[in-house]
């Protein structure tokens, strides 16, 4: 599966979705849509967050599964939180339901 591009290859600005298509009936919707914040993270970060949720948010469980120490996993989560904070723009702070 192709990775979703989130940054402009020319100027590195945040990309927006202009068109959405139904894979079943080919209905196409045109517009300007913000990408959800989580999609702007790297695939590794997204995978980490998904597994974190599947582990019921337990860092201990994550550490056990990854065979890493608890602080290493916690530090990784803190780094992702920092990246999320930087990624969020002011207009998205008003519409966090997209998350």
């Amino acid at each position, binding site marked *: 599966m192709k990775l979703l591009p989130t940054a402009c290859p020319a100027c590195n600005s945040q990309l927006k979705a202009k068109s959405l298509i139904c894979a079943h009936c080919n209905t196409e919707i045109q517009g300007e849509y913000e990408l959800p914040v989580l999609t702007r993270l790297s695939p590794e970060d997204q995978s980490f967050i998904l597994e974190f949720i599947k582990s019921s948010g337990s860092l201990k469980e994550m550490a056990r599964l990854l065979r890493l120490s*608890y602080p290493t996993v916690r530090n990784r989560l803190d780094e992702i939180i920092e990246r999320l904070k930087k990624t969020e723009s002011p207009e998205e702070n008003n519409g966090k339901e997209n998350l």
Partner: protein
Amino acid sequence: MNEIVNNTKTLPRRSISQWLFNPFIFVAGYQALLLGLGIMLISAFIGFLGNTHFDGVLDVHKGLEAPLWLFLAEGIIDWLTIAMPLFFFGLLVSSSSLRMIDVFGTQALARWPYIVTSVVMLPEANQRVGAYIIFRLTSTAASVTIDYMDMLIFIFAIIVGIFMSVWMVALMYRAYVVSCNIKGARAIVTFIVSLIGAEVLSKLSILLLFQRL
């Protein structure tokens, strides 16, 4: 769940150098504390056999015969005097939610190079060369004679001892960075301040213990 375990990009590389210079990526908490306490116990026992005193966070000296509890106490004092200020700075500087057990556990584990130091300091040749140096520097000490082999063992112990001390400090720093999630200049400055404070405090505490003997 296997997906994340197999996703190598999410995992730090498990190399020998990681285990040697930053084992805290893989081991922390109670596991590190138990290993660390075991390491302190072994170092103290070997130290007791060879009269090698760890009389300060970074100090290793050949010294007087003493009961085993004193060697154990030296190790515990060395560990606590560095772990306490690092935990304090961690609470002060880090934005992460720290666990005390991680800071104290990883600092205990970071002392493992001193097992090697206690072993290389074990031969009596080190004691003889130490006494010889005192004899040459002061006129008050008793006359001591040494041979080339004594000197060779002593030089080897000094080189290994210095190398192990540097290694231990590097491990202590990495343990601090991982357990408190502090990086850059803040980590370096707070670590150096803690190390200097711990050195002074541990020397004074151990000195007080010696006076009680």
